């Protein structure tokens, strides 16, 4: 492979990298995708479909694995069915100057294999907020620029959703929405009547509710409501690189995918002023290799892309390729969360359901829309859902004998829970950088996280908790329990920023095409490119920017400009 020249190198095969590979391959470019993770081919999901009694500890993870995954073990999907999809923290250390939870994938497909699958468009305001309130740098991109690329990405991904006509949460190209259940339908009426500015709608998720031709051609079929997604899904019923983008790239014959390849550096040629390729380590053999291409796309995940770019040092760029003005690693953000509430819904005891629905309810942002709220800048949305208590209460509940068995055999009350996800502010001082001396076992300098939330985020989380409780109250729920979690940055697994899009080289790393200001054939199209974070789940926006950047790079290459 070393002798082969590629048109494009894509670093990473997750949400952004997988899609970049698909787009380039379909345009006819010989594309090399390098991923640090191990190979997981679609369908080769070793715990998929296993019943709990087929797992030795019924899903619990033995301590020796937890010890090696002391960060990953806290992620909400972590169990004996999924742990092999998450990184070994002992082999991949980082330094937390301030607390930062860095959840990472261990496989090809990256976090697309294990994501939450909630899929929402950004709105107009999201692209204007930095300019309006003066935090961070102004996006040289507006909603109108990106809307056509959502239009392109969404049908391929397959997103179920309802058409609502809301400015705050623009509609996309949807498959039929997941149904609200009877409890949610009644709550919707009460909440929307009491709070006309709040909308209670079906969650929009990347699940095939009605597969289309392009899904079926890739062997993707209807969601079966197993809710075992992070193990991998042979039905291809939720979107992942493994089930969709990589097979689409592969069938063109233009894809070369190399797993276990830890990219450490983007190579730079001073004479031409271009990136020439990348240097990587085969994490199994330790062998070091260099590969070359006309264009390099960084899609290694937000922090990993920044880490690699910072480590790409040359005479021209001693502080990392394209980083003449100390912009790389700045403005690291995540969604602040942990605020919400839950409550008991009286009644509906004759009503039940079949299937483990992959998404419930979404309440889009309502703070600082139209009029200024005053307590904080920006806003948050809620992910919610109603379901009946199952058997888990019995683990710590009272009762023995026949009566106990009978009680467990019938579902408990309905409960409704709301979790807030808020837009944290971009701050120049929230940054990551390379440790001056410490390296991992393959010689990659460790990343140091120096990121913290401020008063705006605290005020927002407090407000989430209060508004959640007030909505549950209005809907007639009982035993309402507000909560205010204090997850450190990284906890929402929506980390973004570090190689931000902006207008000038002095203040930003990328131009409006995700192109490095100083190195024209170097692009960053994962979360690192984001100059603010909205409050909605980011994955399809990563993909929309990626599609747009590939289109631009295609034109530039055809014109011989890069």
């Amino acid at each position: 492979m070393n002798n082969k020249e590629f048109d494009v190198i894509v670093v990473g095969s997750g949400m952004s990298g997988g899609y970049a590979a698909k787009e380039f391959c379909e345009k006819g470019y010989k594309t090399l995708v390098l991923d640090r993770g191990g190979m997981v081919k679609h369908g080769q999901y070793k715990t998929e479909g296993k019943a709990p009694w087929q797992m030795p500890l019924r899903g619990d993870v033995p301590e020796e694995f937890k010890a090696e995954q002391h960060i990953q073990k806290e992620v909400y999907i972590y169990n004996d069915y999924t742990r092999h999809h998450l990184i070994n923290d002992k082999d991949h250390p980082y330094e937390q100057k301030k607390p930062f939870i860095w959840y990472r994938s261990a496989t090809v497909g990256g976090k697309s294999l294990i994501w939450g699958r909630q899929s929402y468009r950004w709105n107009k305001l999201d692209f204007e907020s930095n300019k309006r309130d003066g935090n961070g740098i102004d996006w040289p991109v507006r909603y109108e620029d990106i809307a056509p690329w959502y239009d392109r990405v969404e049908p391929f991904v397959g997103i179920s959703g309802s058409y609502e006509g809301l400015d705050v949460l623009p509609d996309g190209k949807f498959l039929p929405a997941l149904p609200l259940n009877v409890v949610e339908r009644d709550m919707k009426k009460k909440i929307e009547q009491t709070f006309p500015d709040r909308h209670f709608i079906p969650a929009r998720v990347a699940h095939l509710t009605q597969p289309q031709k392009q899904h079926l051609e890739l062997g993707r079929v209807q969601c079966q409501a197993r809710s075992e997604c992070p193990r991998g899904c042979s039905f291809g019923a939720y979107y992942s690189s493994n089930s969709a983008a990589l097979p689409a790239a592969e069938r063109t014959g233009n894809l070369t995918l190399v797993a276990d390849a830890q990219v450490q550096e983007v190579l730079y040629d001073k004479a031409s002023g271009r990136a020439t390729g990348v240097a990587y380590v085969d994490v199994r053999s330790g062998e070091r290799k260099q590969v070359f291409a006309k264009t390099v796309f960084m899609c290694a995940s937000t922090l990993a892309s920044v880490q690699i770019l910072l480590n790409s040092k040359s005479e021209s760029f001693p502080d990392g390729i394209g980083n003449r003005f100390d912009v790389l690693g700045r403005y690291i953000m995540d969604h602040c969360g942990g605020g919400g509430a839950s409550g008991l819904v009286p009644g509906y005891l004759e009503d039940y359901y079949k299937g483990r629905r992959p998404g419930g309810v979404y309440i889009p942002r309502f703070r600082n829309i139209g009029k200024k709220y005053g307590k904080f800048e920006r806003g948050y949305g809620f992910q919610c859902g109603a379901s009946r208590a199952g058997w888990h209460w019995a683990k710590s509940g009272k009762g023995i004998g026949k009566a106990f068995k009978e009680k467990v055999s019938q579902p408990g009350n309905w409960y409704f829970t709301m979790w807030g996800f808020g837009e944290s502010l971009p701050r120049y001082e929230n940054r990551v950088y390379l440790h001056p001396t410490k390296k991992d076992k393959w010689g990659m300098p460790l990343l140091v996280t120096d990121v913290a939330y401020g008063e705006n985020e605290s005020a927002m989380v407090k407000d989430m908790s209060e508004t959640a409780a007030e909505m549950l109250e209005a809907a007639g729920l009982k035993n309402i329990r507000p909560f205010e979690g204090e997850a450190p940055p990284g906890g929402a697994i929506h980390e973004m920023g570090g190689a931000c899009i902006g207008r000038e080289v002095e203040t930003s790393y990328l131009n409006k095409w995700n192109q490095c200001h100083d190195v024209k054939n170097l692009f960053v199209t994962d979360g690192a490119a984001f100059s603010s974070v909205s409050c909605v789940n980011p994955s399809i926006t990563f993909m929309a920017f990626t599609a747009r950047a590939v289109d631009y790079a295609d034109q530039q290459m055809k014109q011989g400009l890069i």
Partner: protein
Amino acid sequence: MDRRRFLWEMAIFLGCSTLSLDLKAVDAALTFKGAVSSGSGLHIALISRISDIVIPETDTPSASQAGVPGYINFYLSEFLPRDKASEFLGGLSEAFAQGEFLSLDAAQQVNIVQALDDALNTEAENPTYKKLKELIVIGYYTSRVGATQALRYDPIPGPYKEMKLAEVGRTWL
């Protein structure tokens, strides 16, 4: 008391060599006097009996019929760190009169378990019983028997669909 034989049994149970057995584990195990004489692992018999008091045979099988004691044994030997397993066994021995519980009649046994269960989630709760109850419940309802007979289990439900409880009949796994 055949101490050597006892150590050997404990070593098998805890999955380790006798040399690495910690003293606490030995002490905990030695409190099961009957285990040595019967040579059949009293703790298993004890756990089995308590499991069937918590989850007896009704129109669906009991905990021991669903293999719960085997799961708990595996959990203690393969999952819990050795000091925690020793602590659990010691606690079990204490709570159930060094295994003499097994020689009581059924009504007396139920009364003892009922009293321990009534104290759950109060200041008087017994931590070993609390853990045992949790293991019994998990072991039963995630077993094939428990999930498919005592509960409803559908590995591939198809699209989410609202139904009446009467149509489903039981709690979903």
